[in-house]
């Protein structure tokens, strides 16, 4: 093998072009890593806090809470089934209603939809991480609401003490701000279930029923009971399963977009690496000839130049990953097509994102360095004798 110092010094000699190449690779790697961190952020924020022993009961054909509807009569029936955890002789669980309200965005044109959830005291028991960070909990039966910390201040009316109108002369007053361990609920407005049902004319039922199972393993038996009753037309999902499905579309979209964009972007970086390596080889024809004359094999030359390309792109990859990491606290607000509403989430650094983007930078080095390296390996030992 050629001593690695030989190739490292060559990079140093051509440092301007090498730095440019490193920067190009860094940009591409940062873009890919950021896209994957976005996708991971969606997944994380939507699925965080999902509990194995919480079941969501919804209409059979529905893919989300918004589409789903459960009749009032069915709610009691569902909660009376065996297999649910009990407290003071009553099952832990209750109906929740989910609607979206169109609110004007602050700091951007247009409006977007925000999830509004009508909840009961039962809902709070099913979300152990939810806690008030400012203001007060809405009093049951009033037109008071609380807003998730993620969405706070991003829409008109969504600040503590402000109000949003849902019905003539019946504005909802924002009295509290809550957090829920970074979950999707932090992108929602919560108000009393009775208030929301009244405001939206949904007296006949709720969107879904959430309930705590006596044990996580009991879900199959519970599902069998609910789903076997075709008249109910309901299905049962565990909370983690349900949440995973809610993030799937958006995170898939972001991942695919990230790859497509990065692929196009990487062509530029690969070409940059090729230009650099091509020049490195062209300039050292005589040196390479000498190395061959000294007895280094074609393979050794090929590997030497591939290593040289890899050192550059991996350095660029590392810089890109650091840049992406620096973005990791950035919050993004985006519409989640699965819920038709805005989701606020942070770019989440994940091992998978880093490994993928890192490997991508290695790939760029291999692709960019390959042709010049092959060219170098084909240089004849006679080149040492020519000037």
């Amino acid at each position, binding site marked *: 093998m050629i001593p690695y110092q030989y190739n490292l010094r060559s990079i140093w000699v051509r440092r301007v072009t090498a730095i*440019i190449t490193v920067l190009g690779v860094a940009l591409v790697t940062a873009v890919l890593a950021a896209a994957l961190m976005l996708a991971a952020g969606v997944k994380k924020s939507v699925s965080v806090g999902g509990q194995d022993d919480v079941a969501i009961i919804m209409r059979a054909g529905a893919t989300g809470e918004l589409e789903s509807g459960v009749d009032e009569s069915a709610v009691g029936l569902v909660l009376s089934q065996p297999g649910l955890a009990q407290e003071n002789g009553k099952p832990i669980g209750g109906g929740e209603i989910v609607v979206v309200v169109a609110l004007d965005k602050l700091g951007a*044109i247009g409006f977007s939809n925000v999830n509004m959830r009508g909840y009961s005291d039962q809902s709070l028991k099913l979300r152990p991480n939810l806690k008030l960070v400012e203001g007060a909990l809405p009093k049951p039966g009033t037109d008071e609401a609380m807003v998730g910390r993620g969405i706070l201040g991003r829409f008109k009316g969504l600040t503590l003490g402000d109000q949003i109108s849902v*019905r003539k002369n019946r504005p909802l007053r924002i009295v509290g701000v809550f957090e829920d361990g970074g979950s999707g609920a932090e992108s929602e407005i919560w108000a009393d279930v009775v208030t929301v049902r009244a405001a939206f004319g949904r007296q006949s039922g709720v969107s879904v029923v959430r309930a705590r199972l006596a044990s996580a393993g009991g879900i199959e038996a519970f599902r069998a009971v609910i789903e076997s009753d075709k008249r109910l037309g309901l299905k049962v999902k565990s909370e983690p399963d349900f949440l995973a499905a809610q993030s799937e579309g958006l995170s898939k979209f972001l991942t695919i977009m990230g790859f497509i964009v990065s692929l196009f972007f990487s062509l*530029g970086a690969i*070409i940059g690496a090729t*230009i650099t390596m091509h020049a490195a080889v062209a300039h050292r024809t005589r040196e390479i000839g000498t190395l061959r004359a000294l007895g280094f094999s074609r393979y050794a030359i090929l590997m030497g130049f591939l290593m040289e390309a890899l050192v550059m792109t991996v350095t660029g990859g590392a810089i890109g990953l650091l840049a992406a990491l620096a973005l990791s606290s950035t919050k*993004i607000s*985006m519409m989640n097509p699965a819920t038709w509403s805005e989701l606020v989430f942070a770019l989440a650094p994940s091992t998978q994102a880093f490994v993928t983007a890192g490997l991508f930078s290695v790939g760029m080095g291999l692709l960019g360095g390959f042709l010049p390296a092959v060219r170098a390996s084909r240089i004849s030992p006679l080149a040492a004798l020519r000037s």
Partner: protein
Amino acid sequence: MNLPGLAVRNIYRNPVRLALTVAGVAVALLTFVTLRTAVMSWDEAKNYTLKDRLVTRHKVTFVMDLPKNYADDVRDLKGADGKPLIRASTFLNWFGGKDPAHENDFFATIAADHTTFLTVYDEIKIPDDQLKAFNETRNGAVVGDLLAAKFNWKVGDNVTLESPIFGARENGEPWAFKIVGLYSTTSKAVDRLTFYFRWDYMNDGVRAEAKDRVGWIASRSVDAARAAEVTAAIDKRFDDADTQTLAQDEATFFQGFMGMVSSVLAIMSYLSYIILAILGLILANAISMSVRERTNEYASMKAIGFRAKTLASLILTESTLIALAGAIPGVILSYLIVDVALGDFLEYNLANFFPVFRVKFWTYAEAVAAATVIGLFAGIVPALTVARLNVVENLRRVA
């Protein structure tokens, strides 16, 4: 021979590098044009909206509907002078239908009042005999010609849809439709991928509490210039009612809709700038390398008596020309791939998201201008290096 001529010859000196650079610039510009077009297409789609077409919906949320009598009230709305403000009006419902045979394909299913629908959406063209059949068939549906082609539907086909919003029909039967017509459009304001069926058929089948409710009301005002006045009049009409409305002209409605995609558009905008940065890096790399290899030539030209300024402009000419050399295939590539191939594909298959996906002339101009300016900037550092070149040292290095 002149100095620009020398710059041109220098460009051809290293064909491999030239080819790589041109390819790099072309691909970067293709990416730039694609991203810009995606961003602009939303803006562009707005140009197809009609200022005199008004949409009246529930003030708070799209998931809630309006009483059907609101549609009559809007239609009959009069101005302060007692003259009508609305010349045509219809009402529609989002059905959310899914075809079990095409589980993963999204398409819009809308229930529309067949008697008035075409007066508001006059861009929709249905052959007379098919329109007659639509009027005579209670479960009839007219389907966009592109959607029909996608699912291989023909006039006379029976289609059964499921609706998670409304469930099964009240009588327990499935939602069965008969395709009686295919529509095309004369404007991109309306997509050709929607499944329209009769509102009265939907109203028959929904549960009691959902009966006689409409999702939104679409109307044509008597005068496009009075859009603001008419929409205000509509909202005022229902201001005291339990359910309030938000009436907007189509352009404003569309603008508001942008809020739902604004973050995606912003990200695409950022990306389009990043690709320009990468473009700059490719050019800077190529030009700085070329100049570096030719250091002694520039030194001897300086020794002959060429001024620093002349040599610097020689290098800037070269870098700008390389950028242009890449910009031209980049624009051609963009036309073929984005405008022709991708544009057709998206407009036919994703018209709900990209009703228009065509590269604007300005985007091409922007791409060429960006490449030229970046080419010029990429040459600055090498040009300065050569301008400051120490002749003695660099001639020595050669000898």
